[in-house]
Each structure stands twice: as structure tokens, then as C-alpha cells.
């Protein structure tokens, strides 16, 4: 009985090993994805090589052990031998693993050197992480935008059924061309984030104040999803990365369109500066923008998280200091997690958010703020 049980202690693992074997195919729920770049294929190959070497080592060592456990047990009448060292054997099992390691290190080193060679890119994207969104800036075009989680709050809170790409969908994905060497410059505005797209085998930390480099050359058009991989605070789990790879011609059309939209938006911004919006309009836009960008920290009810994120409801700053209120949204506050929103929101959106927060949840200041007031603070007037 004891024998049976002790043997079982090892075989209990067999089904798992078999499952791991199955994972050799490209099923992504069991194994690493092969991905869509030459590098990611190399990485997958290295991973499988390592895996099988490890399986072979494990099988060899454990079969000797289990054989011994069956044959050399007291219940089978085995008498203990007397040896307790053997220099030759000990040298062999020091040298052999060493040689195996060299065999692993050589292909790994060559892949690594290739991965880290970011020279001669065809185009460059600046990727900036901040709590809890990504910002993409095309260095060769006048295009930049934020990319935030698109999954509805109700899905997360289990009120709506969860969609197919639950937590892996964003409002504005990064778009890159296939077949070109795209270099990513990766940095952060606040804490450390990590930009990861498994299908490209690219994972690089976004360090505040420093710029990291990575690159990819995608072979196949498609939508590729990843997530922030470095704990970055409360909503670390809600910071997906979505990249769309398009054929170069489609990409050229897309980036041209984006440049045009960016120009239009600038003109629109200038036009709105001269206009006054009604309070209803401001409150409606303000609520929408507030829930999209502010509520993650300050909460939809404006009460914040005590001790972590301050409440806006009855906040002295909001109730008394209009200029300070606009300033903190435009420029953030150093030494706190309050970031600058001047790039993320237009002036009319900031005006709407300021109006909304000054009049929501019983903050009945009655103040109405227009885009030109925001512009005035921005220009230091």
C-alpha cells in the first residue's frame, strides 16, 4: 500500500505532463503564441526547445528515482548498499549539464542580440504609459492619441454579459504597417508600466524619465492584443494594448486620414474657443468626459477613495478656487498621482469637466466655465 501511494506521488503529475505535450500545437489557451513576427517565431522555437530539454531531464531523473523507489525498498527485501561517493559520476553530472547549458545559451544569445538591435527603423512610435492608459505618438507624422480600455464598466461589474474581447479592447488601437521595421520608444508619465504584445514577443518596461527601445516587423495583417505587464496601481488589470497591423497601402491611407482629422480638430478647437456652450451642453459633455477619464480615481460619485484619491464632492479647491481647479486639470500636481490632462482633453472638454464637477453631487457652485476661460489659464492670464 505504501509503495502504491509513493509511486502515485510521482504519477499524479503525468496527466499534467501530457497536457503540456498537447500544448505543442498553437492553441493559445495552453501554450505560448507563435506570434506573427520572425522574432516571435524564434522565441517560440526557443521556448519549445527549452521545454523539451526540461521534460527530457525531468523524465530521466524521475525514472531513475522511481525505479529505485520500486526496486530498492525495504518491503521488497532490498539491503542498503554502502557507497556514498563516486568522483567519476559526480564529475560527469557536473560537466554534462554544463554542456547542455552551452547548447541552450548559444541560440538564445543570437535571438537576443537580434531582438535588441533597434537600428535602421522604417518608422517610430513613441509609446507613453500613464495610469491607466497608453498614449501613442507617430514620430514621423502629426498624429498622436490616447488609447484606453473600451470594455464597459457594467461588464466588469457583472451587470452586462461579457464580450468576446473582454478587457482586451481599446477605444483607439495603435495602427502599424506590416513588413516594416517599426521602432517603439517606450516611456511613462508616472509609475512603471510595461508594454506587451505577445504576438510580437515585445515586452518592454515604460520607465518614468527614461526611454526604452523595442522593435517589431509584423508579417501578417491582423488585430493583436496584449496588456500592461507591470503592476502600476489600482487599475493595472484594465490597461490593454491593441495593435492593428495593416498592409502598407492601407496604413498609408489610414495615417493620411488621421493627419487630416487632427488638423480639423485643431480648427474646431479654435472655433470653440470663440463660442459659448450652454450649461446643459457643458454638463452633458462634462459628465461623459468625467466618467471616461476622471472616474477611475475620483469615482463616478465624486467621493474618491479615502486615503488614496481625494474626493471632489465638497472639495475646497473646487468650491473656492476656479483658477486652481482649471490649473490642476491642465498641469496635474507633482508628487501626487494627479496627472496633466492638457493633452488628453480638449479645452472645451476641460471646460465641460470643470463645469460638471462644480455642479454635480451637490457641489452647487452654479459656475459655468467656457473653453476660453481654460485657454486663459493655459496662457497664464
Amino acid at each position, binding site marked *: 500500500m505504501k509503495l502504491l501511494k509513493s509511486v502515485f506521488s510521482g504519477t499524479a503529475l503525468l496527466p499534467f505532463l501530457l497536457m503540456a505535450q498537447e*500544448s505543442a500545437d498553437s492553441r493559445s489557451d495552453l501554450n505560448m503564441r507563435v506570434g506573427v513576427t520572425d522574432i516571435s517565431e524564434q522565441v517560440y522555437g526557443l521556448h519549445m526547445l527549452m521545454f523539451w530539454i526540461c521534460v527530457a531531464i525531468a523524465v530521466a*531523473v524521475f525514472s531513475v528515482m522511481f525505479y529505485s523507489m520500486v526496486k530498492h525498498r525495504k518491503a521488497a527485501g532490498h539491503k542498503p548498499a554502502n557507497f556514498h561517493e563516486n568522483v567519476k559520476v559526480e564529475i560527469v553530472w557536473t560537466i554534462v549539464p554544463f554542456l547542455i547549458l552551452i547548447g541552450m545559451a548559444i541560440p538564445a544569445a543570437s535571438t537576443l542580440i537580434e531582438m535588441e538591435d533597434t537600428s535602421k527603423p522604417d518608422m517610430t512610435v513613441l509609446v507613453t504609459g500613464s495610469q491607466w492608459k497608453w498614449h501613442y505618438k507617430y514620430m514621423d507624422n502629426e498624429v498622436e492619441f490616447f488609447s484606453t480600455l473600451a470594455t464597459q464598466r457594467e461588464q466588469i461589474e457583472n451587470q452586462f454579459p461579457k464580450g468576446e474581447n473582454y478587457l482586451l479592447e481599446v477605444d483607439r488601437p495603435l495602427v502599424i504597417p506590416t513588413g516594416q521595421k517599426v521602432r517603439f520608444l517606450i516611456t511613462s508619465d508616472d509609475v512603471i508600466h510595461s508594454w506587451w504584445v505577445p504576438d510580437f514577443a515585445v515586452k518592454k518596461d515604460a520607465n518614468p524619465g527614461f526611454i526604452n527601445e523595442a522593435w517589431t516587423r509584423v508579417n501578417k495583417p491582423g488585430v493583436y492584443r496584449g496588456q500592461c505587464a507591470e503592476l502600476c496601481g489600482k487599475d493595472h488589470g484594465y490597461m490593454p494594448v491593441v495593435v492593428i497591423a495593416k498592409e502598407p497601402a492601407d496604413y498609408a491611407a489610414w495615417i493620411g486620414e488621421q493627419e487630416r482629422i487632427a488638423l480639423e480638430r485643431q480648427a474646431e478647437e479654435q472655433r470653440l474657443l470663440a463660442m459659448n456652450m450652454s450649461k446643459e451642453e457643458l454638463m452633458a459633455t462634462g459628465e461623459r468626459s468625467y466618467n471616461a477619464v476622471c472616474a477611475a480615481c475620483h469615482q463616478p460619485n465624486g467621493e474618491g477613495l479615502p486615503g488614496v484619491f481625494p474626493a471632489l464632492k465638497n472639495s475646497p479647491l473646487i468650491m473656492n478656487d476656479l483658477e486652481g481647479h482649471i490649473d490642476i486639470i491642465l498641469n496635474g500636481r507633482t508628487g501626487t498621482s494627479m496627472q496633466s490632462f492638457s493633452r488628453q482633453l480638449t479645452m472645451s472638454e476641460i471646460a465641460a469637466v470643470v463645469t460638471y464637477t462644480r455642479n454635480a453631487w451637490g457641489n452647487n457652485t452654479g459656475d459655468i466655465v467656457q473653453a476660453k476661460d481654460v485657454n486663459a489659464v493655459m496662457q497664464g492670464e
Partner: protein
Amino acid sequence: MSTITDTAGNTNEHDHHDDHHHGAPKGIMRWLLTTNHKDIGTLYLWFAFIMFLVGGAMAMVIRAELFQPGLQIVDPNFFNQMTTVHGLIMVFGAVMPAFTGLANWLVPMMIGAPDMALPRMNNWSFWILPFAFLILLASLFMEGGGPSFGWTFYAPLSTTYSSDSTALFVFSVHIMGISSIMGAINVIVTIINMRAPGMTLMKMPMFVWTWLITAFLLIAVMPVLAAAVTMVLTDKYFGTDFFNAAGGGDPVMFQHIFWFFGHPEVYIMILPAFGIISHIIPTFSRKKLFGYASMVYATASIALLSFVVWAHHMFTTGMPVGAELFFMVATMLISVPTGVKVFNWVATMWQGSMTFEIPMLFAISFIVLFTIGGLSGLMLAITPVDFQYHDTYFVVAHFHYVLVTGAVFSIMAAVYYWLPKWTGKMFDIRLAKWHFWCSLVSVNVLFFPMHFVGLAGMPRRIPDYALQFADFNQWISIGGFAFGLSQLIFLALVIKACRKQGEPVTDQVWDGAEGLEWEIPSPAPYHTFDTPPVVR
């Protein structure tokens, strides 16, 4: 080990000590004031067990939230506090104190010393620990909650962006560090100065050797941890900029400092385990440990190498490619001495005369499961592939195999192995079997599928996940709850044992057990080796 004679003779030792130690305090004061290595060992072990259950309860919260996608039970902020405090408690509150407790009980008995060299400091190093963890746990109830930046407390998440409980976190880590350093000094002084006549270094039992090396590691790296938390404290409250790029600092420097502590810390938690397994395997194989000398050298080389591999935790931070290659190769090298250890254990079993009592079952599971953790560690060492593994559940699977089925299983094996010596009674074998089999099955249901979700792309430290990970996470949670419940069997067993229930055991307890601790009576008298034995 060579033959051993006890010049004092064991039988009259009990009466002997009563002459000197009359009027010892009773009740709670006995435990508060005790300077006896066995009492302090017991305190450490109970403290570690309680912390193991507290940290385990937090793991249950984590697994309950991760049972399904979506937010059900806790909010993300509290979830992060749970992962952080779970890690801190298990590392500093459960595994490390348990090993210190075992060292207290066993080192003097194994080397024929009457007690630890610095008994009063021993009392102090234990009794500051409960306060450290009281502070840490109390911080969870502060406004804004406890530490939520992961047990690795990367800056600037732990500085500019943390809640005010950070100050409490820093002081509690300081106290833990002071306690560990004092414990380590005590172990070193005891082993260097108080070995019985004739016990040369190369005759020391493996547990003593591994602890001696561990103690040096502790003294080397705990001050580094103290420096790291102090810099976090001053960055947060006193306007320094060690880790703030805007002030000329560097957030990645934090990681270098932390992992310069953190990697040797990993070996602090596994070297004593190697020692324990090196006692149990020979006993139940009825054969001497194979390659004693190479075991000692392997332990020493693992310890030395542990100082030059720290940045393998940081491959994605953007190091120069030369540094990445160096840390990859250095990390891979560690598998050579680690492999030697595993091969030596198997060679010890080879041609032995094995029986499979509870300690042996845990020891064999240790070898198999620790090796799985070691092999996934080798995969993680390969830098280009680590870019895919890093910060996913693959890493979580790896370090739980090494720390739970490695360190924790070895501690359980040790408790089962030496408990009869401590209490004089055999523990409840039926309960022990239940505990072993439930733990073995559930721990694998708990941690093995983590490899799969990690490879498939699930990041660690997230409270909610994409739908493709849902099935495995349910299995993982079920395994987690089962593993948690299984430990209550262990609790019942240990309580029974402490009440001295069970069959009396012989001095040697186990058939093939060798060493000084098996030559004194069972239960071990309050004072042992007042006159040192002579080891030949």
C-alpha cells in the same frame, strides 16, 4: 557523520539541569522571558504557522476574486493589498521564521551545544517579530488601506503614488530585518564556536551547513533591504529623489537594489530546505548521504552565484544587451550546483533500503516538485523567452513550485521528521497521511495550470482577466481552497502532538536516523549537552 559518544551520559541529564534552573517562570512569562533554544524554536514555529494561515487566508481572498472574470468580491485596490501583504507575510512571516525556528531547535542539538550562543538576543530577535507583523497587518485598516504595490514595492509606485501606510510598511520591514540579522548572527556564532569536540566543519550535519551559509547570506543582504526601504521612506516623506528621474534619480536603480537583496533572499528560503531533505532521504533510504562534500560545495556555490544573478528579474527594464547576456549565463550556471544536489539525493536513494514514512513522502514530493520549479526557472533564465514569461502567471507558477512545494513542503517534512523527538510521541499518522495526500493533489491543481494561463498571456497581479483564462482560473481557485483547507488537518495534527497525545517513541525515533539529536532522549530534555559529547 562518524561514531558518537556522549561523555556525560544522557540518562541523568534531566536531574542535572533542575539543580541549576529552579524557579523558572510559568505560564505566559515563561514564553516571554525564555532564553531556551527549544522554547524559542517552538515560538518561532508557532508564529510561522499562524502567519502561514493568515497569509493563506489572504490567498483565499485572491483566489475567490479570481474564481470568475469580473469584479465580484473585492475592489482592485484591496486586491492589490492582498497580493502585497500575502507575499510579505509568506516570505518574512512564514517561511523565514519557520526555518529560524528549526535552526533554534536543531542546530544546538545537532552540534552538541547546550544552547544557542546568544540566548538573550535570541529571545529579543523572536519577540520583536510579532510587533513587526502587527504593524503590517494594522496598516490594512488605515484610511487608504495597507501597502498595495506588490511585495517587491517598485518605486515610484511605492513612493509618490502610495498611500500613507507606506511608513508603517517601512518600519515593519525594518523590524523584520533586525530580527533576521540577529537570528543569523546567533546561528553563525553558535556554529563557529560551540561545536562538540571532534565535530570538524566537514563533519557537520547538512542542515547545519546549509544554515551556516544561509546566515551569511542574511547578514549580507538584509541591510540592503533596509537601505531600499529607507530610500523609499525618504523619497516619499523627506523630499529625496533616489528613485525619481525628475530629481536626477532612477526608478530602475530601485529594482537593482531590491533584487540584489531579493535574489539571495530566494536562496535564504531554499538552502535550509536542501539541508532538511539531505537528512530525511538518507534516514529512510538507510544509506549515507551520497556526495556529502559535493553537497557542501554545491550549497556554497549556489550562495556565491546568488549575488551575481539579480538582474534576471529585470530583463524587461531595458538593460544593455551585454548585461542581459551576462545575467542569463550566470543564472543558467546556478542550475549546475542545484542539479548536483538533486542527483546526489537520487544517488542516495539508489540501492538503499527505502521505506516511505510521512517525512519521506514529503521529501520525495519535494524533490519532484522542486525540480519542476527549478526547470521552469531554467526556462525563465533564457532572456529572449523571458520577455514572454516575465510578469505572467508562468512566473507565479515557477516561484510557488519553488517556495510552496519546495520550501514549505521541506518545512512540513522537517516538522514530521523531528516532531516525535520534540514531543516524545509519534504524531497521528492517519491525519498526517490525509494531510500529505490532500496537500499533494491540491497543490498541483493549484499551481500547475498557472503555467498554462501564464504562457497563454495572463499577467500577474490583476484582479480580473480575459475570458480565455476563465476555465483554468476556476481550477486554480478550487485547488487553492483545497490546499488551504488541507492545512487545517496539519493544524489539528500539530495541536494533538503538542498535547503529547500519541504513542511514545524511542530515542532514535526512525530506523535509519543518524546524528547527535537522535542520541538524546525523546522528548528532548529542556537542557541538552550540558557536557559536550565527543564526536569521533
